[in-house]
């Protein structure tokens, strides 16, 4: 026998309505039922018109981020039993335009992500015959935490700076820039610095710290940004006192 809980799901059907509305659905749940399972039940058994994103259902793909009772959550890693007796309010991720129901447009984040060059930048690739780029466990540890980011954008949804100023490059993009800056194989930190030291880069962050609290992968974007501020400040002092890069 299973318990039942009410989901209050935000609906937005642009062809029918100009405002968000809420529909209520009662779904069965057990200890293991994730909110995403509840949404899948709604879609399969109650209302096939519900639109939402998901893929891996195991906290890897970063697709199923939504606002659950006001908090940004990965719905595959958030369980209905923890919200009993309900109701559970499911809304789209905040700070992004809503395309339909629980689906938001992520284009802005995708464009920002590319700007910070989240890949290994090398001035010149060494030939394969010279072997691999080697790294010690300590060097790996320097950036490993930031490499855990799954681009779920919960940090953007939690960030009031991004909500108020959509030009802010945002927590995940900066954390991913740090992931490569701190990698000893990378040589792209100067290129990234140009983007990140802009007004809408690291300096727009006021260290609210919510990005770190909501991160399902413990990436700590807030820490990455503050560390980068220190790096940028030292860098600018160096260029002030030794303009020729001595």
């Amino acid at each position, binding site marked *: 026998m299973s318990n039942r809980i009410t989901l209050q799901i935000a609906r937005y059907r*642009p062809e029918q309505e100009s405002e*968000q509305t809420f529909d209520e659905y009662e779904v069965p749940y057990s200890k293991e039922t994730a909110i995403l399972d509840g949404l899948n039940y709604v879609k399969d058994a109650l209302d096939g018109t519900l639109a939402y994103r998901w893929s891996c259902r195991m906290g890897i793909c970063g697709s199923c981020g939504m606002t659950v009772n006001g908090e940004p959550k990965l719905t595959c890693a958030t369980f209905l039993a923890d919200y009993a007796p309900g109701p559970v309010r499911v809304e789209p991720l905040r700070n992004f335009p809503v395309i*339909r129901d629980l689906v938001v447009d992520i284009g802005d984040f995708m464009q920002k992500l590319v700007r910070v060059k989240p890949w290994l930048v090398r001035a010149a690739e060494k030939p394969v015959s010279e072997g691999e780029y080697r790294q010690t466990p300590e060097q790996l540890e320097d950036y490993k935490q930031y490499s855990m980011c799954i681009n779920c954008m919960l940090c953007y949804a939690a960030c009031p700076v991004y909500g*108020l100023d959509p030009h802010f490059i945002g927590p995940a993009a900066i954390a991913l820039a740090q992931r490569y800056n701190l990698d000893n194989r990378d040589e792209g930190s100067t290129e990234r610095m140009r983007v990140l030291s802009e007004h809408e880069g690291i300096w727009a962050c006021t*260290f*609210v710290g919510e990005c*770190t609290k909501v991160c399902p992968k413990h990436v700590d974007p807030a820490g990455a940004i503050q*560390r980068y501020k220190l790096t940028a400040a030292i860098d600018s002092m160096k260029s002030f006192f030794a303009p020729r890069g001595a």
Partner: protein
Amino acid sequence: MNETESSTPYHPRWLRPRMSTYWWLEKPAYLTFMLREGSCVFVGWFAVYLLLLLDALLEGPLAYELFLAWSATPWVLLLNIVTLAFVVFHAITFFQAAPQAMVVRIGRMRVSPQAVLLGHYAGWVVVSAIVAFVLLGAR
């Protein structure tokens, strides 16, 4: 899709909810952040108060007595009590944030965030002890 609809499958009409002016009242963490940011005004006031004190000291004993009398008036006293509370709040939240921004290494080992936090508090205690010694020990 018919002609009366204002969107097409490929050009949907997006919903762009605006952030409330009172967003900082929505979560306790946002409110704490705003108080922390606002506390800088009180930190600024303490700096101004210290400058006024120095100015009175430089002007002589009478000016200093007047400054003390002004400081004892209820409004200034109340302002300074509120300021003290905010400055303590400012210091504690600053210390809490510090380990996130600072990565300290000793050799190849990274110092744990708790140790960085403790270091800040230890520094606070040492500086307070020196100030207390100067103020009380000098008598």
